[in-house]
């Protein structure tokens, strides 16, 4: 397998992990919205309510920065990161 194929394999792997986490916060938890809202969550808000106000939104912000850092590491590992002058 060429260097480029290995790079793409790892990139795809990262994509699947990212999308899995995305799925949990955007879809997964809302399958159980009614049940989860009975429980008190962060700062005293009901759990589901908190996720729709802040929790999921914040998770997406963190997820994107985490993803960007991981992808940069992958690019460096295979020597595909950009040089500043490009």
């Amino acid at each position, binding site marked *: 397998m060429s260097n*480029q194929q290995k*790079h*793409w394999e790892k*990139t795809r792997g*990262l*994509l699947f992990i*990212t*999308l899995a986490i*995305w799925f949990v*916060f*955007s*879809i997964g938890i*809302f*399958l*159980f*919205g*009614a049940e989860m*809202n009975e429980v008190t969550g962060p*700062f*005293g*808000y*009901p759990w*589901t*309510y908190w*996720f*729709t*106000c*802040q929790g*999921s*939104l*914040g998770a*997406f*912000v963190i*997820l*994107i*920065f985490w*993803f*960007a850092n991981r*992808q*940069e590491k992958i*690019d460096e590992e295979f*020597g*595909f*990161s*950009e*040089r500043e002058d*490009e």
Partner: protein
Amino acid sequence: MKGNFIDNLPKIYGIYTGGFVGFIIIMAIAEQMGMTAKTIGIAFVAFTVFIYALIGYLSRTAQADAYYVAGRQVPTVFNGMATAADWMSGASFVAMAGGIYFKGYGYMALLVGWTGGYVLVASLLAPYLRKFGCYTVPDFIGTRYGGNLARFSAVVVLTVASFTYVTAQINATGTIASVALDIPFQYAVYVGLISILLCSMLGGMRGVTWTQVAQYIVLIIAYLLPVFWISNKMGAGFFPHFMLADEVARIGELEQQFGFVKNAAADLKSVPKGLAGITKAHSAVNATPWAFISLALAMMMGTASLPHVMMRYFTTPSVKAARKSVGWSLFFIFLLYSSAPMLATLSKLSLIDPNLPTGIIGKTFAEVEAIDWYQNWNQANLMFISDFNGNGTLELNEFFMGGKAVVLATPEIAGLPYVISGLVAAGGMAAAMSTADGLILAIANAISHDVYYKIIDPKAETAKRLLVARVLLVIIGFAGATIAAMEIQGILGSVIWAFDFAMSGLFFPLVLGVWWKRANRQGAIAGMLGGLVAGAWYLVWVRTGGSGFLGITQLTFGIFGSAVSLVLMVVVSLMTAEPDKATQKMVDDVRVPSGKSILGKSH
């Protein structure tokens, strides 16, 4: 100032922010000295629009890559702010808190959808399209799949989606300008349009970028300052986002106590159009999982397909910067979106809690009708009370309000000085203008670059191309304003449709263009046109009395459209020949960040 413009950006926008805060303070002092509310409103809108126009003028350019992609030198954080302003429309600013106020959980799917979509943007598309080096989204489609028909199909989808969206934005600028400047709506729409064009006409993407950063700063101050102030004034907590649990619980208690009494249809007839009562629980789960998830999913896929957002990531200096920039965009959006539910909570509690001095439920009608702010907003057609049961006391089901009032009226209800209302008007104007600019530019650029330059006249000189781009900008702006002046439809309905149209036609052709090498021209064309037609058909069918299926409504028709698009694209691609070697090599090159972009710096 020493050094070049880009290095000085933090300093420039720092001074700008300080200047704006200074302006707010001057207005506050002027109010104490007796300046009228109307003059303050005019001053806020006129001053901010003047600054944007000045930035637009200073950003004028005669170069293609500055006009189309701001010279690809916008730093990550600033591009994040510009994208956030591009993204948050007049609807987000003025109508979102109101939607949450009235519809609660079911509506908050939009919050999740309009943020979660950025994960798809960052991981599936933005860095790859940046590497591609295109000027517009159809530019990517046209080069990746080849051929004028593919390029043209992408322009069609882009135009349908963006145009649906832009009329709502021009409508919003008109509404705010007509209130703040006290002129009739039909004229205010054109005042709004001219302000919008001043930002984008001379500098194209470069002008829009630097005005959008300025607009973000105004709109975020205008949104957050009242939320924090009201929360503190009510004694609800100095940092509302972490401290409103008691208030949320209290609203639940009051809902129990009052109950949701259903009004007779005959009674509701007397309520002015556009106003609604509180009929749904504030924090309880009031929608089925599928209703919530389907709406969130449609908005997420729509986000990743809307060209005016995607093209913001063409302006970053590198692929790496494009990825990080998506994170910053969402962070800046998060600041506003996470505040909207807090504003809705504060607004609702201050109106319905009889223990608070501002609460009106339980008061007599004579008492409520004597309140200054009630009279003002009743006159503005945003509040209404009616004694349906004839007992002389205001009940929860007898109080009606317009969605916009949550943002526009709450500062006044809470007793904040008028300077805050002026600030909110400037913020709403900034939000609507910045989105309208992004959308008009997306359409005009696609038509001038992809249709005129790439298809009709590939030999055109830069000066002529940019002239065509500017003429189109004006034509599209006026077309949008003319339709907006007809006031066909509410702000939010058409905003959501735009997402559905975009995802129907563009989501899979874009994503598979990067992630599936086997995708070819025939498949992409079938996917774009088939998806758009299927989505549009479903919308018309449901609007004309069709029952729909699988719980897909007129707000989520993109789910059907994009499913059709995916199936068509895969089937047709597999039935026809695979893309040639050169195209496959191109996809390989897009997948690595290093090396030259596919399209040259100027093309």
